[in-house]
């Protein structure tokens, strides 16, 4: 278990390094921040001065080396727009993102998993078809369409809820709802298929033939075995939500990490994009590590093989 997690952690560090390096290179190759920030009409001397002051005239590898050194000193650079610390900007956006992510994730789990289990246990009945129809609809409807639809209905027509902004509970309702519909639909589908696979296994029939009550068969044998793929999906989903729901935050003008990243990319505000990406990567990787740890708890085969073979 310890060794297993150690190797996972080392791999996680490598992942972070690769993402940071990739983002750094792509950002510098895909457009000139000097042009974006100073406008294309700026005199060449001004552009040259801008490049020099931000260190953009040095070779790429030198820039990257400097960037890495700075990170290890806790210096993530400053925004090219207003010279405020980049990481500070990102960290300021995190509470807003969490305010959407945490309730949305909780609702995803609370709705998606029971709905999937229910559908699997009533396979091919009208209830199963109903749940799965909703799930397909929620899964396929893009979040910007759903978000705008919800705004149209609840903000414009009915006037019950605000269409955007970030100042209180009622502002969070529509974005959380948008995130929940898609997420719960995905979880319901995975839960259903995972449950159906497990329910078809001979050991489920065997458990029933031992004389266990059906509810006990489901709780003791089916659910724990069906949990593994669901944990994977839920973990990925959580990482995604922490990274900021880019589209939903933009639709509802929600000042979270996602919206910050989008506007920083548009502005070629390199330090802010890099800081945001670093944070997103770290949270994704951390979630995956957590999932690996949870896996060990659920699957004795992993625990054993990690001890025996590594």
């Amino acid at each position, binding site marked *: 278990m310890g060794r297993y997690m150690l190797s996972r952690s080392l791999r996680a560090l490598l992942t972070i390094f690769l993402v940071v390096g990739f983002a750094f290179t792509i950002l510098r190759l895909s457009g000139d921040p000097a042009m974006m920030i100073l406008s294309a009409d700026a005199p060449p001397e001004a552009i040259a001065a801008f490049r020099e002051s931000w260190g953009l005239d040095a070779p790429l590898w030198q820039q990257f080396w400097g960037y890495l050194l700075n990170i290890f000193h806790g210096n993530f650079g400053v925004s090219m727009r207003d010279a405020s610390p980049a990481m500070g900007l990102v960290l300021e956006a995190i509470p807003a993102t969490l305010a959407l992510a945490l309730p949305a994730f909780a609702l995803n789990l609370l709705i998606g998993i029971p709905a999937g289990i229910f559908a699997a246990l009533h396979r091919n009945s009208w209830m199963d078809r109903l749940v799965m129809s909703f799930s397909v609809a929620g899964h396929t409807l893009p979040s910007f369409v759903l978000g705008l639809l919800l705004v149209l209905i609840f903000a414009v027509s009915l006037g019950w809820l605000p269409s955007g902004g970030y100042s209180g509970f009622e502002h969070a309702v529509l974005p959380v709802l948008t995130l929940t519909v898609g997420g719960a639909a995905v979880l319901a589908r995975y839960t259903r298929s995972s449950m159906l696979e497990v329910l078809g*296994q*001979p*050991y489920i*029939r*065997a*458990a*029933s*033939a*031992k*004389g*266990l*009550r*059906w509810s006990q068969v489901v709780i003791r*044998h089916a659910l*724990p*075995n069906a949990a593994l793929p669901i944990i994977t999906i839920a973990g990925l989903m959580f990482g995604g939500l922490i990274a900021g729901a880019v589209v939903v935050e933009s639709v509802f003008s929600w000042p979270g990490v996602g919206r910050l990243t989008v506007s920083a990319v548009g502005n070629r505000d390199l330090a802010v994009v890099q800081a945001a990406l670093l944070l997103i990567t770290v949270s994704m990787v951390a979630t995956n590590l957590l999932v690996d740890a949870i896996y060990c708890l*659920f*699957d*004795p*085969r992993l625990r*054993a093989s990690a001890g025996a073979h590594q």
Partner: protein
Amino acid sequence: MTPLLNVTGLQRHFFVEGKNEWLADKKILRAVDGVTLSVQRGKTLGIVGESGCGKSTMAKLVLGLIPATAGTVEFDGKPVTAQRNRAWRAARRHMQMVYQDPLGALDRRLTALEQVTEPLLIHEKNGEIKPAVAAQTMMRAVGLTDNLFTRYPHELSGGQRQRVVLARALVLKPSLLVCDEPISALDVSVQAQVINLLDDLRQQMNLTMLFISHDLRVVRHICDEVAVMYLGRIIEQGSAKEVLSHPAHPYTRALISAVSTPGAKHAIAGSGRIILKGEPPNPVDIPTGCSFHPRCAMATAHCKTSAPTVTRLGESHTVSCHLHAMIHHGSAS
């Protein structure tokens, strides 16, 4: 003496989708189509036949794991239903099953000991002996050593897994054990061990067994009686010795001649190896008359149109074949 297990006119039909699902093109698959048999207490009945002839469906029907379309199963004088109520669950302790694929039949998240203990926790919560202790005793009885108790299914060999399945089935001391191809997933060297173990245990525990197999050598070794199934019906039935040495049905003769026996030229004196033509017919489309006639080398025009009835040949030997007199006489001489 009343038999422990009494099956009368048992049928199980499945609906299968035809080619066109919009036109409700449903067809009936007759997996088990009118089976009557009985097993005396302490005896072992072997059910043999090719894959797809309905053997495994029989096992599930007998245990009440799936409902029958028609017919009855009586166990110890009481009807077996597939209604999963309290009585059904309580009856589980008297009738247990050993599965074809031991790895699939075990919950991969539980240790061997936990698997064997579970039935006791369900049925004997207030027993005199602690469930874990009783489970360990049973596991030693099936030849599992103490160091294997805490292993997970994937850490055991195929033979060890099947011993765990066997211990789990026997720990409640059932009176009926249904074995559905218990050795077909095992290596040949392990097959013999498991069969000998089963043979010993059934004598020690006075088990009644329904032994489903396609391996005639094993059936000859372990069974008191044999029923030969073809397309959901029993075509020949009787004491193992009688049926296997004097087979009366052409299909039984073909099965026996297919067994390779070292040393002996052929199991049935004077007969060459009979090779059946083609595959067994689709059970959705059972041939008219005698269902075996398309593959039978001796089939006459009569066989194509009229289904044979059950004929009694001896005290415990029945066959469904128009030509039995000729064949039975031929093989006996």
